[in-house]
């Protein structure tokens, strides 16, 4: 579903992403860990076609992102760190708008169904987004992905700023999408959530993917150690 081949992005002399080789298959949740500036968001921006690679290529659902920017977006959904919807529209209206411009005409019942599936409380459907918490907005984001019938989900630090309960709910939603066969790539700083929801974990540093791990093969403390080792924070462990 998601493949990158030697994907590289340079800004002048600075390398933001260095020959990234990555594959996320159907029903997998791949969590990208790394410090700020490690290249996680650059990877997502390249997969979204927001920026062009210096070299290499990225594929979504077997389509080259750079060659088919519009087509690839039909298969993917994206939830940024701060999902900004239209504050003066309700949850149903926002969902209707974003799925509508993506080419999905849905009935009112369908829209409400997707919002319910995303875990939003029924009494919030008609409320304006300006009254929503971040967790509620993220649920609308998931509903957009569900409504769009996305095959690929790109998440850029979606749980940052969420309280543990909301973060846990969000994790459960990702698991639900996984069972539907969605391939998810999530950039995060949250090791615990990565271990909880991820099937695969990659640790990035200075634009390159330093380690790739299978989530079920390691414990949280092993993941933490691997992360700190990669970040060369050994002295802090003591």
């Amino acid at each position, binding site marked *: 579903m998601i493949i990158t081949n030697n994907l590289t992005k340079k800004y002048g002399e600075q390398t933001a992403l260095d020959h990234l080789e990555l594959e996320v298959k159907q029903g997998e949740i791949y969590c990208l860990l790394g410090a700020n500036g490690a290249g996680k968001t650059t990877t997502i921006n390249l997969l979204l076609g927001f*920026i062009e690679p210096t070299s290499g290529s990225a594929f979504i659902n077997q389509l080259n992102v750079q060659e088919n920017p519009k087509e690839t977006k*039909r298969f993917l959904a994206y939830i940024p760190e701060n999902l900004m919807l239209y504050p003066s529209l309700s949850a149903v209206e926002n969902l209707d708008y974003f799925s509508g411009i993506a080419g999905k005409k849905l009935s009112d019942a369908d829209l409400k169904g997707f919002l319910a599936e995303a875990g939003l409380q029924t009494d919030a459907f008609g409320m304006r987004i300006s009254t929503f918490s971040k967790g509620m907005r993220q649920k609308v984001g998931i509903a957009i992905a569900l409504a769009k019938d996305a095959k690929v989900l790109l998440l850029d630090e979606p749980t940052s700023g969420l309280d543990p309960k909301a973060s846990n709910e969000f994790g459960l939603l990702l698991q639900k999408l996984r069972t539907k066969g969605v391939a998810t790539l999530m950039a995060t700083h949250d090791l615990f959530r990565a271990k909880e929801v991820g099937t695969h974990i990659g640790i990035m540093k200075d634009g390159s993917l330093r380690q790739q791990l299978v989530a079920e093969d390691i414990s949280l403390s092993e993941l933490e150690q691997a992360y700190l080792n990669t970040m060369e924070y050994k002295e802090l462990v003591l």
Partner: protein
Amino acid sequence: MLSYNCKYELKLLLRSRWIQLLSIMLLLLFGFSIYNGLEKVEKRKRDITAAKEEVKENDAVMLKLLDSVEGGMEVSASPWTIPTSPMAVGNYHPRVAAMEPQSMAFIATGQADLFTHYVKPRVSGDDSALNFAEMTSPVQLLFGSFDLAFVIVYLLPLLIIAFSYDVLSAERESGSLRLLAAQPIRIQSWVLQKLGLRFFWLSILVIGSLTIIFFAVGLNPFTEMTGFLGLLGLIITYMLFWFALAFLINLWVGTSAKNAVALLGLWVVFVLLAPSMLNQLGNTLYPMPSRTLMINQMRDLKAEVTKKQDEILDNFLRDHPEYAINDTTQYRGFYHRYMASQKLVKEELAPVVDKFEGQLQKQQDWIGRFKWVSPAIIVQESLNQMAGTSTRDYENFRKQVVGFASDWRQHFMPFLYNNQDFSQKDYPNLPKFQFEQRSSASFGVIPVLLLIAIALFGLGFTVSRSSKKGNILTAN
């Protein structure tokens, strides 16, 4: 995408109170400016009516005097004002040469606050002595007139700027642009649709507000259908030009603040700088000869001619033997000499007057050639033409008055040189002035403005397509 943009753009505009605010502002601006325009037109009509009434009253007095004189009675009037003298009629009982306002005169003051709308050419006056300038308050000239043309040319672009400067940047700044850009749409097309919808709603509001105001002030737009539709066409294409600029700025510039500054800068250039620079350049390239110098030359010439009036009269009568033959008295007084010399003065002054008018024409031609640099100029000019208050309309009026003044003078010449008294039976034959309006304004500027707007939209698309992908998502 279009149907969803249509549906939700209106909802967003209504919920942000933009539609309500714009409706109120347009109603107020259009209402006040049209009321102002109508007041000016009413004053103009009242002035003309008063002048005509004064002529009627004077004529009644004149006819009474003539009746008394013809009845052999004594009249208590100064001898030179008794209307049996053709010169007394020609000088003290002039006709009113009035420029009646056109039906759409209220939309643009144009040159109406600079030029007078009626003159009374006298038989002893010369063409250059006809005063067409209006005594106007300098304060009013400084600030201009708050008419519909002012609202359309100056204020409407500012409303459009406020309505459109941040269509893309607001999405970028709020963070929703990344979510939009992740959908299978082209952001350029999305911006175009958003601006297109705002243009559509603003057009509806403009048409609605104007129609309401027209009816409210007692004007029926359907009786002046061509003019009204032309006016709407002009406003809408002018609006489209400003929306096209907003499209370019939204795609090219960046933050909302920068967009606003860029659009306001363009407003200053197109609405304020371009017209005044064009005017200044016209004055520099084709400077007007001194009017004082011309008047001095005129006075010198008249003084010189006065010395030779006997000789001039002899030559004049030689050229017009019909006057010498028909008159048995052969009396030749002041007016005989004066009127004969007037012709010579006019001929001698022709080069000076021609130079003055020639330079004025060159200035106007210059502005006419380069008016296309700013849509504000062509729209203002078109509105003036629709209102019948353009420079050309007043020039047309001036020429007609000069022609009528000549007719008025010529009408009394046979009376004067044949020493024939003016009588009651001659009264109905006095020349009358009938103003002929220029053909109404052409709407040729509408397709031109449309083409300019389309070209700007095309330019926006072409350049944004060739620019780097990330530019739209990241503010410059």
